[in-house]
């Protein structure tokens, strides 16, 4: 298990599938996380494996994706595309009205649990 800071954001694939949220393409676009190679090594995970990310807001199981080219986040930072998966573990309320969707602490561990479908995740 490692401690990380989670950040969320838009991606091209998320933008392209935003009007088709019940499609497989959308699930594929938002149900993964990216982390540094060194963190992947520490966790013993490779591209396509699953991890459980947890904090006091909740938990979520995501696929691990090895970032393209040299775009890996720095050590200790996990990127998740904005959407229903990320929202299980981000969104701290600081009183200004806008939830904190970025810079949220969490732990990551390797898991065998399944990644839920988009529908399962909102109905859970």
């Amino acid at each position, binding site marked *: 298990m490692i401690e990380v800071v989670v*950040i969320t954001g838009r991606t*091209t694939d998320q933008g392209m599938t935003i*009007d*088709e949220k*019940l499609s497989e393409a959308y699930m594929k676009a938002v149900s993964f996380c990216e982390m540094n190679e060194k963190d992947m090594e520490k966790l013993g995970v490779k591209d396509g494996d699953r991890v459980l990310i947890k904090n006091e807001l909740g938990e979520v199981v995501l696929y691990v994706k090895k970032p393209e080219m040299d775009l890996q986040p720095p050590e200790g930072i996990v990127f998740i595309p904005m959407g229903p998966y990320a*929202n299980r573990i981000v969104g701290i*309320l*600081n009183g200004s*009205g806008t939830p904190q969707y970025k810079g949220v602490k969490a732990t990551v561990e390797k898991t065998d649990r399944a990644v839920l479908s988009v529908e399962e995740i909102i109905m859970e």
Partner: protein
Amino acid sequence: MIKDVVCTFCGNACDDIEFEGDYGRNLCPVGEAKFARKERIKTPMINGKEVSYDEAIEKAAEILKSSKRPLLYGWSSTVNEAIRLGVIIAEKLGGIYDQCSSVCHAPTTLAMIEQGIVGGTLGQAKNRADVVVFWGCNPVEAHPRHPTRYSVMARGFLTRGRSDRRVIVVDVRKTPTAYLATDFYMIKPNSDFAIFTALRSIVNGHEEAVPDRVGGLKKEELIELAKTLESAKYGLVFFGLGVTHTRGHERNVEAVIKLVQDLNKKTRYILQPMRGHFNVVGSGEVPAWEVGFEYAIDFSRGYARFSPGEFTAVEALIRGDCDAAMIVASDPVAHFPKKAVERLKKIPVIQIDPHPNLTTKIADVVIPTAIVGIEAEGTIYRMDGVPLRVKKIKDTNYPTDVEIMEKLLEKIVR
């Protein structure tokens, strides 16, 4: 061929799209996806059962009228004409009007109320800017044509494009936008406020007050960055959710506004938030000219009150204040934190939208409408506040958001 079509996806609202049948020239991949044919909500529904438009609108009016404090939320992907009616409906119902900014750039609005803003248009970026900063934003993925059309490579009256510009990217991770940068600075999450403040100290001549490291940057790097900023003849700072979504929220934005004010003592600078949806600006501007506030507006006392943190949708839902919700042109179930979604699942929800999405899954009444900018026309505001007329380029049997809002208003005041 239909010329000068406005793309109704991101805040760039590119107005140079040319349609030849189904093919839209000049669209970026995300814009292409927006205009592609896709699954629609076929008919209006009440609890999953197909009904007529009249029945669905009747039911929606009934839910809203019997609710003590309905939440009317969304609006960023429809036209100003529909938003105007939405604000009136919220007022008549004594409900809450809130819009997508409350989970995006609302801290920017708050900071602007406190500090004002040195603003301009994207035309300034294109025609004048020689130093362009992208702070906590990733236009290559979120606003794909921004670099070519307005900022990095755009040729203008006084700029010859990329070779005339110094491009600075500041972010907590390397994004594809960093590939466009002359200088890329990687900072630590939640350190924007500290870094803006350090830069202000340097710009204002108090270099000695800056510690050796701030937010992951060495003092020398901060000095170098400040000098680059000061070297501009005409500078432009674009910032995104990397600034508003992290700890500090509106205080971060206030700090960057002050930095830009300070830079204006030495040269010319403007600041521009990278707004997400094509009319998220309208969803704030319209209530501002109707009732004086941009978001988090409560009408329960018969007049408009603004209180972020109280009347913003997420908090109002989590506190259990709202006993019904109408969602227009948005998908809060996909984008709100889990606890707020849990409340939405418990109360009656009316959804007005062209496409099935996650809010459709929990909505009691679903009313499908025409797609704005493809099947429906109207007025929108680009990210810099420039109003544009979006076109109708295809016929449809779906009613427009405006038509649905008109009928709903009629039933509510009846």
